[in-house]
């Protein structure tokens, strides 16, 4: 009896169970976790977590970045090993030392970062680890048939012979779901599945989830988006800093309550700012186009202007060209078209299209990803404080040597001003928490009085106190007359900060709105590419 057969039997058993139990109120939880703890080095990712998930339900898990959601699910799926705790599946204490055990127990997982082999076909990815025998041919034939059935049943169409690298992100996700279904999973975990999807694709996904729920499958859905939680889940658990703060019925809660549970206090998303007082045009972008390494066009003719003393917010689902826009402006991607700053053209290719030249033109950049772009985690705070500006004459002792002592002193005072804790310039960047790391980047970029500030996801993974602080500094800079381009996937943040909002979809600007004249619904449609 193969592993697949076993789970098949298991599936039928639980399906029957689920059907019977639907009538009786005293159900055995599909999943019960008790006292799960997990540390990565000194980071306590999960602390004594308990959770129960009922069969045939969609159970949501929310929490800020780094709250420990993915870690918890990876433990359930046998990808990580818990330091402590018990896992009970369908009322039975179950050891899950590896993913094989999880699969046997009927668990399937779609990871936040897909686990697909890029240069394999869909079919090969599906059968990997679930082959029928030592030879591939029968497995492939069987999988092809099964795939067709699943595709028809769940509207999950993908070409079985296409290579993964040729597929869109949405289709790759379908492959991941198919993988789980092919393995007869009756407990399906989805880790932030909609982060990479357009609202349309997300709707499709939810239809499928609904369908699976009706079939009696259990679904765990991790998301940041309260709207989705309210829309589809039956119950919801909230995590904060590695702990499970609450589990509630969705029908008995509200987004406000969830938000409060998530961050630990009342959320204040309104920034107090005066009306903008725009001056001369600072940034003009005309017909900007960018191709990536695979020659795919990622920006398809962008036109934008920003004036001094104005914040332009770019809304959009991640992956629609916002990153490329920041990269071209920041000088680390090549493009074609025209970009003018204060009337002067920027080079879009060649050796004057780098970060150094941009900084020389008064363009500062708080990048989207502070770990990979904005900071060198192994460098000390003072070394990070001059990152990108290290050739500035102010930091040189003489033509040969840098003025390290001077830089350390400068860093210490900047850390005070930006309330970086602890204010120790010789600590490596990786020893600071996310919010404090972001403040270091911000201090470096803002204190240079830029003509144009590029900001990407300024408060991603940052706690609420720091968010307020960061927002305040951005508005202050605007009031001093800088032009600011803000990219954020958080619509709340876009509404709170922007003086004008542009929506990006598929490498194009779908349209511009004033925040006071629009609402989330309209922007959502534009972000999906269905409205302009």
């Amino acid at each position, binding site marked *: 009896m193969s592993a697949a057969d076993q789970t098949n039997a298991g599936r039928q058993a639980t399906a029957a169970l689920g059907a019977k139990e639907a009538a009786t109120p005293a159900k055995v939880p599909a999943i019960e976790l008790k006292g799960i703890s997990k540390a990565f080095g000194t980071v306590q990712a999960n602390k004594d977590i308990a959770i129960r998930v009922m069969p045939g339900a969609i159970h949501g898990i929310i929490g800020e970045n780094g709250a420990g959601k993915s870690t918890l699910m990876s433990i359930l799926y046998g990808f*990580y090993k818990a330091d402590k705790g018990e896992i009970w599946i369908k009322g039975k204490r179950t050891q899950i030392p590896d993913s094989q055990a999880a699969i046997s127990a009927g668990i399937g997982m779609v990871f936040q970062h897909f686990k697909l082999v*890029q240069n394999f076909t869909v079919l090969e990815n599906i059968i990997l680890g679930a082959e029928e*025998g030592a030879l*591939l041919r029968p497995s492939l034939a069987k999988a092809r048939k099964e795939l067709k059935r699943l595709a028809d049943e769940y509207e999950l169409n993908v070409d079985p012979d296409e290579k993964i690298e040729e597929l869109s992100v949405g289709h790759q996700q379908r492959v991941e779901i198919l993988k789980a279904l092919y393995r007869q999973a009756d407990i399906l975990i989805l880790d932030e599945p909609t982060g990479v999807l357009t609202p349309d694709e997300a709707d499709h996904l939810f239809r499928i989830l609904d369908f699976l729920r009706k079939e009696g499958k259990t679904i765990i859905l991790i998301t940041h988006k309260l709207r989705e939680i309210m829309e589809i889940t039956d119950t919801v658990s909230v995590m904060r800093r590695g702990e499970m703060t609450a589990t509630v019925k969705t029908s008995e809660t509200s987004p406000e309550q969830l938000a409060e549970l998530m961050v630990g206090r009342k959320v204040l998303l309104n920034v107090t700012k005066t009306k903008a007082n725009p001056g001369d045009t600072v940034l003009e972008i005309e017909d900007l186009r960018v191709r990536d390494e695979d020659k795919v066009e990622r920006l398809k003719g962008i036109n934008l202007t920003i004036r001094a003393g104005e914040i332009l917010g770019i809304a959009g689902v991640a992956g629609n060209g916002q990153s490329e826009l920041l990269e071209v402006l920041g000088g680390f991607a090549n493009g074609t078209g025209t970009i003018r700053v204060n009337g002067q053209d920027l080079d879009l290719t060649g050796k004057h299209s780098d970060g150094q030249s941009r900084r020389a033109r008064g363009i500062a950049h708080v990048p989207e990803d502070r770990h990979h772009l904005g900071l060198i985690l192994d460098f000390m705070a003072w070394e990070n404080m001059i990152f990108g500006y290290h050739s500035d004459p102010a930091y040189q002792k003489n033509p040969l040597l840098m003025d390290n002592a001077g830089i350390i002193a400068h860093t210490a005072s900047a850390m005070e001003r930006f309330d970086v804790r602890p204010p120790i310039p010789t600590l490596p960047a990786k020893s600071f928490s996310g919010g404090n790391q972001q403040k270091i980047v911000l201090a470096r970029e803002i204190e240079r009085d830029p003509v144009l500030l590029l900001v990407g996801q300024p408060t991603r993974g940052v706690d609420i106190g720091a968010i307020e602080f960061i927002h305040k500094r951005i508005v202050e800079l605007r009031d001093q007359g800088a032009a600011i381009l803000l990219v954020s996937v958080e619509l709340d943040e876009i509404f709170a900060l922007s003086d004008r909002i542009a929506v990006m979809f598929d490498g194009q600007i779908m349209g511009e709105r004033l925040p006071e004249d629009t609402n989330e619904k309209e922007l959502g449609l534009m972000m999906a590419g269905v409205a302009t």
Partner: protein
Amino acid sequence: MDFATIIELLDSAVRLGTPLLLACLAGLFSERAGIFDIGLEGKMLMAAFFSAAVAAVTGSAWLGLLAGIGGAMSLTLVHGLASITFRGNQLISGVAVNFLASGFTVLIAQSWFQQGGRTPQLSGNARFEPITLPGADAVKDVPVIGQIYDNLLSGHTILVYVAFAMVPLTWWVLFRTRFGLRLRAVGENPESVDTAGVSVIRLRYTAVAITGVLSGLAGTYLATGLAAGFVKEMTAGRGYIALAALIFAKWRPVPALGATMLFGLLEAISNRYPNIDLGVVNLPIQFMQAVPYILTVVILAGFIGKAIPPRAGGQPYVKER
């Protein structure tokens, strides 16, 4: 150049290309599984020594073969421990393996045989003798075909035929079996294998074990087939040429055959014609010797089709930072 000379050159190319082919396929299994292996040279050398030593003592080439595989395997274990279990730097481990073999073989050879790091000469059953294919004598005088059959195809040691058989076998295992699918997957994205419920560690150890067997065959052929005994540093860079061939073949088995035979032919030509006068230029022997390396650099530079290694190659599989 007459036909007989061409046959003779090709024959020599087969002999000289065989250790490269075996080592190249050895490297293929390891690197396809995501473990870079610049230690092929060392594994071959170790196998060459142990096969020759045991064959010399026991008088049996087959026992020598076992010992050769064992010798290569011991270094494979070191490399596997370093790159799989301890998640160390695979390149550094490869360098260490090469030095280890280079020193260890001489040290042990001197201690066992007191012949300045050689083994005694092998003769008789202690060597793999050439095999005459059936009917080779009969067709010997048939023009062209007969000559090819008798001179080129027949008359090699068993290990040569094994090496050639390994090419389709490797292809089949890699692309037609479950093991091959998983092996390729673990070299591209180990997480995909792990989350599919398959042990990354076991797969990778299996892959490097196959590398051990094949590089063991390579070294054994060198010492007991091509030569008749071990002398120090007798691999003379062949492990690196095999590595070059692997890149040249873009990690695929059938092109690996082509690449290694090409490099074998280059060696055969430079043995026979130290200086090649092309009229315009006179290619010195040193140039001929450098050609495999130069070709590899050209391939690496991507001027003739780009060589893209397995995506997870060289990186230890680390789940938790």
